[in-house]
């Protein structure tokens, strides 16, 4: 370990080890074990990743339990574990909206989206929306939407990761971002979706184990008395009983509704999540994957409620975690501080390493989805008109993965002083305003035309970016204006509505020959989606 630290110090003399005194060797050991294990997985997966299908979707051969665990691993990001517990610690009950919101989209993903997407698509959700609509325009807007969401999600993860690792491991921000970037490049370019899936499975298992252990220990500390947690939490929190009731944070009902809509519908448009539907062989396995994923996440988010409220008692009253009255590392570090209270340096080290592993797994999933959008949607489908040279496509996929990693690392270094919450808002809002309306209407509304879908997608994209910029997180926090022009941080309620209305109006007014053709193809799509007549093509592609 010391050798590694010395090498890094030599390579990055200006910014290594911002706080080397804070290095936790338990966390570094756990993290190194995780890295070695996952690199072994990548090597194993590389022997099986010889085609584009293997790279994008692991050849469609992942089982339901594996895929469900990997989906959970992909979605339970560091923001879920650290952010939700931190928010509950700060504001109490209102923090639960993120826990329930993160889960709310999954039933809809299962009931409405997963089966049809699996039956109609091959590698990406863009395949689905272009099934009956004209290839070039719809693929163009869907790919722009996908890549925008992926890059922003990637930057949000990397900025958060850089800050987190700076605190956890004592490494500087740039080194942290570089380590994550290099590791993810290896996972993805060498092992493709198969390696990414197994990294996500390992990470989900570790996270669930860690959270369970923390809950058992904290319940033991509280003598297995749940009531005592809430009594003591309200007694020591500065807001008192207010933390046990809604309204301490979301004072404006519209703000609560729009955040709820953003979280639910944003999930339904996330390209890296939708892509996981294609890693299984058929509709039935896709369905069971969703259920396993939801079960794991439901358990995890329920545990975060206990962890968040317990942290109020065990962390806020412990002076060791405060420096000049400020919580060390801010509220995002609450869960990590709690792990130290419960299990000393060893548990803290383990949970820190799990948090780091979490970021690696999420970033790997994003990179696979982003490289597929470039090499499959743009190169194979648009440029080569569905007849690409397989070797060139696979090579391009790997180049795209490396390029995306570098773009993500570069932007995240530029954005290191920006508000992470602002960056994290954008992908969900854009996914809810661009990808979700196009996907749902393309599958379920016969009258949707290509012009309607493109117009709605453009309106969704422009309005969401504009309203985020005019909202409090940018206009006040970054621009420095005294008051925001648009009052809400999460504008998806408005931008998604605008996208749907535009799609509806433009499609209804579209009487062109192309529109008639789009509508005519709906029946063929309906048959394929309901009877799974073309699903084998998807798996073998």
């Amino acid at each position: 370990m010391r050798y590694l630290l010395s090498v890094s110090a030599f390579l990055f003399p200006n910014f290594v080890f911002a706080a080397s005194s804070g290095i936790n060797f338990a966390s570094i050991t756990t993290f190194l074990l995780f890295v070695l294990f996952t690199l072994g997985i990548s090597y194993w997966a590389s022997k099986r990743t010889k085609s584009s299908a293997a790279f994008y979707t692991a050849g469609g051969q992942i089982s339901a339990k594996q895929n469900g665990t990997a989906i959970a691993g992909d979605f339970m990001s560091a923001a879920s574990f650290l952010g939700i517990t931190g928010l509950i610690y700060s504001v109490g009950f209102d923090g639960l909206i993120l826990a329930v919101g993160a889960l709310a989209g999954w039933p809809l993903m299962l009931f409405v989206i997963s089966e049809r997407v699996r039956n109609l698509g091959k590698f990406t959700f863009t395949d689905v929306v272009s099934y009956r609509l004209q290839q070039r325009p719809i693929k163009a807007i869907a790919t722009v939407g996908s890549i925008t969401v992926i890059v922003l999600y990637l930057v949000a993860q990397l900025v958060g990761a850089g800050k987190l690792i700076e605190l956890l491991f004592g490494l500087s921000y740039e080194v942290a971002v570089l380590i994550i970037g290099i590791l993810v490049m290896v996972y993805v370019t060498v092992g493709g979706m198969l390696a990414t899936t197994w990294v996500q499975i390992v990470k989900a298992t570790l996270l669930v184990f860690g959270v369970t252990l923390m809950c058992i220990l904290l319940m033991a500390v509280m003598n297995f008395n749940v009531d005592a947690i809430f009594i003591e939490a309200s007694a020591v929190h500065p807001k008192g009983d207010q933390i046990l009731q809604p309204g301490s944070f979301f004072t404006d009902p519209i703000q609560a509704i729009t955040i709820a809509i953003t979280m639910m519908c944003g999930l339904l448009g996330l390209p890296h999540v939708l892509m996981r539907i294609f890693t299984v062989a058929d509709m039935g396995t896709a369905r069971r994957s969703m259920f396993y994923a939801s079960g794991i996440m439901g358990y995890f988010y329920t545990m975060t409620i206990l962890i968040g409220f317990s942290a109020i008692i065990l962390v806020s009253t412990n002076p060791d975690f405060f420096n000049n009255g400020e919580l060390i590392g801010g509220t995002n570090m609450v869960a990590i501080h709690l792990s130290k209270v419960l299990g000393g340096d060893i548990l803290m080290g383990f949970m820190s390493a799990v948090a780091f592993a979490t970021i690696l797994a999420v970033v790997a999933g994003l990179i696979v989805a982003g490289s597929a959008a470039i090499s499959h949607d743009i190169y194979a489908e648009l440029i080569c008109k569905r007849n690409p040279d397989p070797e060139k496509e696979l090579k391009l996929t790997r180049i795209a993965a490396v390029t995306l990693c570098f773009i993500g690392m570069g932007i995240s270094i530029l954005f290191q002083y920006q508000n992470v919450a602002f960056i994290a808002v954008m992908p969900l809002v854009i996914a809810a305003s661009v990808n979700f309306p196009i996907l749902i209407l393309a599958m379920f509304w016969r009258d949707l035309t290509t012009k309607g879908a493109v117009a709605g997608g453009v309106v969704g994209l422009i309005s969401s970016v504009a309203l985020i910029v005019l909202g409090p997180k940018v206009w006040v926090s970054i621009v420095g204006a005294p008051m925001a022009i648009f009052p809400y941080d999460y504008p998806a309620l408005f931008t998604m509505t605008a996208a749907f209305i535009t799609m509806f109006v433009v499609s209804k007014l579209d009487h062109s020959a192309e529109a008639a053709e789009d509508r005519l193809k709906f029946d063929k799509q309906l048959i394929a989606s309901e009877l799974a007549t073309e699903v084998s093509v998807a798996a073998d592609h």
Partner: protein
Amino acid sequence: MSEKTQVILQSPSFKKLLKARAKVRITMTALSLFSYAFFVGGIVLYRDWFAAPVMDGSSIPIGIPATVFVICLMVLLQYLYIKLSEQYLDVLQKKARKDLSL
């Protein structure tokens, strides 16, 4: 529209499958949205009820078990959907495929 497409669309077994799937999907989606709306409603509309203790002498507010209930309900609904799909909808799909020689 091709003749084959028209034959499938007119097929009674395909129509039955579509109707059954739509019914299950709409019911399940409505239940799921209703449970989420119940939770969001607790945060924006009936805050006092969510803040009331579960029982006399307890400090656990109704909102906490309500949240856990919503989470469990969402997972349970998915389990029900899978069971309905496997035991009812998939059977209808197989029958339709067989009737249409697909």
